[in-house]
């Protein structure tokens, strides 16, 4: 059952070294910056981070990388005009990269949350990203076997929660939040507003509270500036 916690530090408490952390966001939109800042303060080490990108500028995910807490990143689009923190670490061999097509990233996370053991997907056939993977022809088409990406923890940002953990998101900040919320042993969510049960339209709930463990209200969310970064 979801609990409302006092602050971001409490929301990320107990995360262990070596954890796989699913972090929501597409570039700056939907990135749970305050939860990531708390992760930095916790000094947890040797993380595998799953995100669409690999950090923008020097804040949020980029700051976590710069602080040396990430061993490996699983993402679809690391290279952006403002991904200099990741670029430098990668070129210096200080962070491992698993590059995953964006649709496979989403579906592998979805599969983990839905209890699917693996699935055959056509994406990547004939490309370096499918090399070494099991293949099967189904109904005349070639597919690659893809495995789920499970998180020990998911850190996501939604717009509004009720105290039961039901969530609604805002515009394109939704992106990976709903699938990541399902795919981790512990899901922590930062929101701009928390309402009482009945305060959300049940027809409009995107993430049902069963997928949420900790909720924290962040009053002045540091909106990362939407930057003109390709990718």
């Amino acid at each position: 059952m979801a609990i409302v916690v006092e602050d971001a530090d409490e929301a990320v408490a107990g995360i262990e070294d070596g954890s796989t952390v699913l972090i929501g966001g597409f570039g700056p939109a939907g990135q749970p910056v305050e939860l990531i800042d708390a992760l930095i303060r916790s000094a947890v080490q040797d993380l595998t981070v799953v995100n669409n990108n690999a950090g923008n500028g020097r804040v949020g995910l980029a700051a976590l990388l710069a602080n040396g807490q990430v061993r490996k990143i699983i993402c679809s689009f690391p290279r952006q005009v403002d991904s200099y923190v990741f670029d430098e670490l990668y070129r210096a061999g200080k962070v491992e990269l698993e590059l995953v097509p964006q649709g496979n990233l989403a579906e592998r996370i979805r599969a983990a949350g839905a209890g699917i053991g693996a699935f055959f997907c056509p994406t990547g056939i004939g490309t370096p990203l499918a090399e070494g993977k099991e293949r099967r022809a189904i109904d005349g088409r070639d597919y690659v076997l893809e495995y789920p990406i499970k998180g020990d923890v998911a850190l996501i940002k939604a717009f509004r929660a009720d105290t039961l953990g039901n969530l609604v998101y805002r515009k394109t900040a939704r992106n990976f939040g709903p699938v990541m919320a399902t795919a981790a042993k512990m899901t922590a969510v930062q929101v701009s507003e928390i309402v009482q049960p009945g305060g959300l339209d049940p027809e409009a709930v995107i993430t049902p509270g069963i997928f949420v463990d900790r909720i924290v209200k962040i009053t002045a969310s540091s909106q990362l500036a939407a930057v003109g970064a390709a990718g």
Partner: protein
Amino acid sequence: MIMQSAFDRSRPLARDDLARLTAADIPPGSHVNLGIGLPTRVADFLGPESGVILQTENGMLGMGPQAYGDDIDPDLINAGKLPVTETPGAAYFHAADSFAMMRGGHLDVCVLGAFQVSFDGDLANWHTGAPDAIPAVGGAMDLALGAKNVFVLMSLFSKDGSPKLVPKCTYPLTALACVSRIYTDYGVFVLTDHGIVIRETYGISRNDLARRLMITYQDD
């Protein structure tokens, strides 16, 4: 449909004309995804009268033009992470649904840039393969194999003069045999069951273009 005669055939197409030509070939009412860079400009020529609904893979149908000034909302960006607007009837969805739209064959057209396209329609647009290059694939592979029609929009020749339309791609592939049309400054190419066909040319004759690319010219 804009008539092809609207464009001056005696010289290569300027970038905006190339985007306008591509836009004119998108059927009214299509669901369309536009790639980053030059393909994004196609949106400038798809007004509300086209009935075209733009998808952006970070989770939106009904994307409107780029946002400026007070209209900028950090929660509302496109796949290139630029601030955009929403149109009436827009819808938001999560990443798994977004890619189900592609892989599931629901998207009518995607317009992508390319490093290289082969005569068989193989696409290379995500990685140069250079040892110091940091690879980034994003949604390119899912889009290329999932959209019903894949249009490539690119300059025909690279800066060193070598053609980007080639018998076989040398860069790492994005997807196999996925491209249906190629819009370039020197001509439009259509991939058919019988091979690649030059639909029209700009600033070069069909024979000269076919010779320069080493494709067998077929007079249709």
